[in-house]
């Protein structure tokens, strides 16, 4: 992506976000009581100001994107193996599953799976080490947080650790 494309894209994104907030987001999701004496004290005042400024910055970015010449610096090298996107999706999936599993499986078992899954997603060269770490690191962290720091690490419905 050239700087020009980036600037323009960001600018358009900011403008859309600002418009969305001003017309949909703030009226819909910021509740303001009816007895507000002064507009500057209303809960909606500050979000409106910020949205408007975001919009202005977006316009600025679009303008700046048009002004700067195109091929200034193309330092970004395209990924090597073309599997970047599938891996991103896989990582997002791992994170979503983590959120699902944390209260059900408990933090220790979940993080063991997370460790193993991400290590293999990153195609590590040290597979055995990765598996050993996947078991040991969550256990060590559990021992530390639960028994030294006294944090109630979620235990889940199945196997409880002492």
């Amino acid at each position, binding site marked *: 992506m050239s700087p020009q494309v980036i600037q323009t894209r960001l600018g358009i994104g900011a403008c859309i976000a600002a418009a969305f907030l001003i017309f949909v987001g703030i009226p819909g999701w910021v509740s303001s009581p009816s007895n*507000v004496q002064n507009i500057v004290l209303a*809960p909606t005042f500050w979000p409106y100001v910020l949205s408007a400024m*975001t919009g202005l*910055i977006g316009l600025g970015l679009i303008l700046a994107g048009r002004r700067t010449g195109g091929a200034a610096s193309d330092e970004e090298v395209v990924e090597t193996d073309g599997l970047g996107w599938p891996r991103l999706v896989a990582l997002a999936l791992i994170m979503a599953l*983590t959120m699902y599993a944390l*209260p059900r499986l408990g933090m220790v078992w979940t993080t063991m799976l997370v460790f193993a899954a*991400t290590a293999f997603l990153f*195609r590590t060269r040290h597979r055995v080490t990765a598996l050993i770490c996947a078991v040991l690191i969550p256990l060590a962290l559990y021992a530390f947080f639960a028994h030294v*720091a006294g944090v109630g*690490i979620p235990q889940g419905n199945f196997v409880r650790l002492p």
Partner: protein
Amino acid sequence: MSLFDSLIAGLSLVASFEAFFALFAGICIGVVGGAIPGLSATMAVALTLPFTFSLQPITGILLLLGVYKGGIFGGSIPAILIKTPGTPASSATILDGFPLAEKGEAGRALGMALWASCTADLISNLALILFAGWLASFALSFGPPEFFALILFSLTIIAGVSGESLLRGALSAMLGLLLATVGLDLVYGTNRFTFGDPNMMGGLNFIAVLIGLFAIPEIIAMAWNPTAHLGKARALGKTKVTFADYKRSFKSIVRGSLIGVFLGSIPGIGAAPSAFLSYSEARRKSPNKENFGKGEIEGVAASEAGNNGVAGATLIPLLALGVPGDVITAIIIGAFMIHGLQPGPMMFVLNVDIIYGLFIGLIVSSVFLFIVGSVAIKGFKFVADVPKRILMPAVLVLCIYGVFAVNNNIFDVGVMFVMGWVGYVMMRHHVPAAPFLIAFILGPLLEDNFRQAMLMSGSDPMILLRGPITWFFWALTVITIVAIIRGIARKAPAT
């Protein structure tokens, strides 16, 4: 009682093995606690608090102060090594510390962090001892209008950490300000962007956002291209910080310490803005401005000086006024009260031995910090040698535990993940993350103080210009903005 008598009384109080041992142990606990993301200095202090109940007052308080000081330094270790600030205060250290580690100079960055921390700590403690009374009365003249002007000025540091494009930095800051509006409204208590979820009502957890924004994007980037780091020298390389480095950064360290002392003595701001302000000032004054953000040792020095400079100074409002400056000092005040001590002006009369005992302990703590820190650096440096594709999953797991531990809430882990993707998109579009973070910290302060000022005056905006302090900061703000605009104008014809 003369100063000398007070000193003797204080000395007789701390001159025991337990007192110094408590201080030393506290620093050890703090460094380790601070080095574990999510555990943070705050948690470490809170966890140590119950142990102080059974100790002598001075011993217990020295223990807590040790944890506090150790924690603030400890936070810089993971910030440099794995781009995950152990404590919010060390987020500015990432900006140059992590690039240095990537260049194979983790040892140098860590060493500089320690030297800067100890120097700033010493300056801060001296400021506490010499100027406590004066700075405290100054702090009390800060009402909402003064805060508003100060924070508005602080927001101009965004320009200093925006990197190549000011507009993209401003966009990042706007996103941070907008995200900070989530939660219950300060004045009316109504919901803002909470979608009825009780987890959102408290606002997004700061540490979850922080870790999500800095640490997680690195992990996502690894999924995009797992072999990008190969061929880069990430090992320790030149392991020592040199005296020449220290000398070169000395000005920035002193400046950062003074910024820290100033911001620390005003209750309610905390160490993170101070570190960013110090960093941005160092960059502005430096001859090699361009190198900041790409691994400039002076950047690490300035950030660490900025946040450690706060550590001693937050005790000024605590001891002189009985007012906590941040969460950590709020816990420490609790410890004072449990021992029947009531911090405030009378304490300098009634318990002067304890005050001087603390002063002596604080001075010693800078030395202890240096010793413990040197050992800790040696201990943690191995992290830089761990293969990156094993390290990253470990960081991810560590972040899950750490972020959960901050508020015992699984929801925060989700916030961290989502913010990670936001951070990744920002990274891909060359939008700097630091302005986002600064805005996220300062945004609520800015809004709250603005609205409190409006409540005070019955919505008369003139209150924002009510006294010399406000004029001073308004003037500074205007000067800075003019300087920024001129900087842009000068750069524009060149491109």
